[in-house]
């Protein structure tokens, strides 16, 4: 890891954050220590000062009542027994100062004194050693220094830990991005730190990581779809191209015969048309499946779509002897359903009761046309194909029923698959792409497709689309 020069960036970033964190923490701690020390010192000084002042008051009143001798006697008696002996002296005017108490070993420079002048001009002076106080403060300073040192250590290591836990997901994200760029593999994912980090990982970086993974999912999906489409197209085109080539080759290898040549050329043109249709349809399917199909959305009444598709197929149905009809019941009440044979005209469901979806008109026409094509193709003469447009549970529904042979249950799930052709359908002309295109277009519109079928009874294809 450390050999990677690009990691220095995130390393430096982490270190910087750790240092900032530690510095601020230490500055805060030192400020607290200083304030504490100062307040303690001041309050100790005040206490000493108060002691001296109250003693002075006592002594002044004794002197005032009994004069110098009483005071001297009292001070001597008191200082013999006092736990902390004070320095006391009396200075009268014109008289030598009389020291009443002077504890041994006292350094005069370490004495704090207080003085009170009496009415006759005499001064009474009391002194107290500052040594115990200094002692206490010195020990306090030592303790505070130790605490500060601890704070610095904690700040540095804590800062490092906190930064590590903050930077690790970023680092993981960076490493994943780098891996993806280097290998081109989009199946790599960034592990989401949630197991030991914050629960629910709804913090900013967790969210970023998840979004990044979602983005990778999407990219992977698109890439896979495109790769799949390319594979499919190249695979699916091989068969018709083989036919094309084979026809031409066979004609060239045979003895010259104008009729035979014409036949072969006609087959080639038909085959290349089929290749083109197939290519366009495959492109449509993969565009719709990968979400890159451009849908020109507008409000489209489904009945108009069905009307046009039915119009396209009515002749074919006629010729085949299949009855193609439209049932329109815009409101989902089964009893009011009307059935209109196409030959006598299509009764359009009017105005605001119409089933309108927000979609691409041409694409929806393709859906309807393909479903009707499918139904008409597989319904034998004398059968019926009924197209129905209605509203159901807040959805627009397009339903195509036929009385064809039905689909065997084992084939049902596969009919939407590209180029799948059931046993019954092999005899029919077609590309095997119609239903896949229907499914892809409907799903690109946010809808769903479904099929129910009973062998021997017919099939019902249902398209559900969100109402527009």
């Amino acid at each position, binding site marked *: 890891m450390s050999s990677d020069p690009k990691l220095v960036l995130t390393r430096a970033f982490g270190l910087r954050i750790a240092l900032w964190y530690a510095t601020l923490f230490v500055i805060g701690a030192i400020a607290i220590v200083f304030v504490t020390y100062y307040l303690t010192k001041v309050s100790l000084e005040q206490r000493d000062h108060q002691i001296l002042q109250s003693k002075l008051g006592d002594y002044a009143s004794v002197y005032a009542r009994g004069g110098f001798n009483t005071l001297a006697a009292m001070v001597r008696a008191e200082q013999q027994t006092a736990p902390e002996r004070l320095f006391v002296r009396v200075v009268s005017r014109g008289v030598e100062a009389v020291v009443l108490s002077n504890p041994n070993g006292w350094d005069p420079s370490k004495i704090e004194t207080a003085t009170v002048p009496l009415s006759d001009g005499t001064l009474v002076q009391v002194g107290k050693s500052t040594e115990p106080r200094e002692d206490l403060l010195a020990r306090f300073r030592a303790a505070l220094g130790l605490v500060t040192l601890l704070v610095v250590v904690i700040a540095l290591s804590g800062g490092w830990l906190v930064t590590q836990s903050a930077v690790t997901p970023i680092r993981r994200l960076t490493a994943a991005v780098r891996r993806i760029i280097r290998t081109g593999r989009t199946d790599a994912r960034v592990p989401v730190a949630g197991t030991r980090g914050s629960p629910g990982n709804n913090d900013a970086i967790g969210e970023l990581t998840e979004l990044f993974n979602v983005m990778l999912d999407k990219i992977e999906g698109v890439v896979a779809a495109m790769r799949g489409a390319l594979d499919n197209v190249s695979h699916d085109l091989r068969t018709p191209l083989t036919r094309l080539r084979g026809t031409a080759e066979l004609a060239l290898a045979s003895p010259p015969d104008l009729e035979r040549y014409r036949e072969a050329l006609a087959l080639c043109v038909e085959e290349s*048309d089929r290749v083109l249709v197939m290519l366009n349809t495959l492109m449509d399917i993969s565009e719709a499946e990968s979400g890159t199909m451009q849908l020109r959305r507008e409000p489209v009444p489904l009945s108009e779509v069905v009307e046009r598709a039915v119009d396209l197929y009515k002749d*074919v149905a006629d010729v085949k002897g299949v009855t193609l009809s439209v049932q329109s019941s815009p409101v989902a009440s089964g009893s009011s359903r009307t059935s209109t044979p196409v030959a006598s005209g299509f009764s359009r469901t009017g105005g605001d009761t119409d089933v309108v979806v927000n979609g691409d008109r041409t694409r929806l026409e393709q859906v309807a046309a393909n479903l009707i094509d499918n139904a008409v193709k597989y319904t034998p003469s004398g059968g019926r194909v009924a197209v129905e447009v209605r509203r159901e549970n807040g959805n627009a529904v397009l339903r195509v029923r036929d009385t064809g042979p039905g689909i065997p249950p084992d084939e049902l799930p596969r009919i939407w698959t590209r180029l799948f052709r059931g046993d019954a359908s092999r005899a029919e002309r077609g590309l095997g792409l119609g239903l896949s295109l229907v499914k892809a277009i409907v799903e690109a519109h946010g809808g769903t497709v479904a099929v129910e079928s009973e062998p021997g009874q017919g099939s019902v294809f249902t398209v559900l689309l969100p109402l527009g």
Partner: protein
Amino acid sequence: MISCRHGYDADVRALLVEDDPTIAEFVARGLREAGFAVDHAPDGEAGLTAAVATPYDVAIIDLMLPKRDGLSLIEELRRRGITTPVLILSARREIDDRVRGLQTGGDDYLTKPFAFAELLARVQALVRRATRAPEPTTLTVDDLTLDLLTRRVTRAGKPIDLRPREFALLEYLMRNAGRVVSKTMILSHVWEYNFDPQTNIVDVLVSRLREKIDRPFEKKLLHTVRGVGYVLRP
């Protein structure tokens, strides 16, 4: 009266700007057989030089060209006030490209691969539009007559009763009499559907029409050209 193929003199001049030699050859040959005088330019610059030097009646311009692409060529022609109708050829089928091509000054758009029949029909439509030939009210092919105003169809004087789609198909075939029209062309003109249905819808309509206009008569007018489409000719 619409006659087969010789509706235009050899004086109708077409410019073909296409870099693929095979495509250029079959388009040029087809147009010459249809009575056009065709000049071919293999790149955009040559196309511009030719179009500036000669007043063409129609130009067929591929979009992907060496030296100067098709869109820029059309733009330059229009900038210089040259109003020759332009049919754009392109290998891309996106609607946006089509819109851009037409906005730049193209008059029609055809996606590769195309049927030559369709290219010819479009080129002739452009020439017709430009020369503003008077719209006929009656179309006649041999003894078959279609009156566009009364919507009456007769053959050898006998009235023929057609359903609306059959009438539309016959009108389209008669307007293109002598020219092969493809199934795709019929589908987009008669039904205005621009995708390929999987079933032979066009075959069904054509055989219905044939039943009415040809079957009772000895001389057949509506012919199938295998692999290409249909043609109405005397």
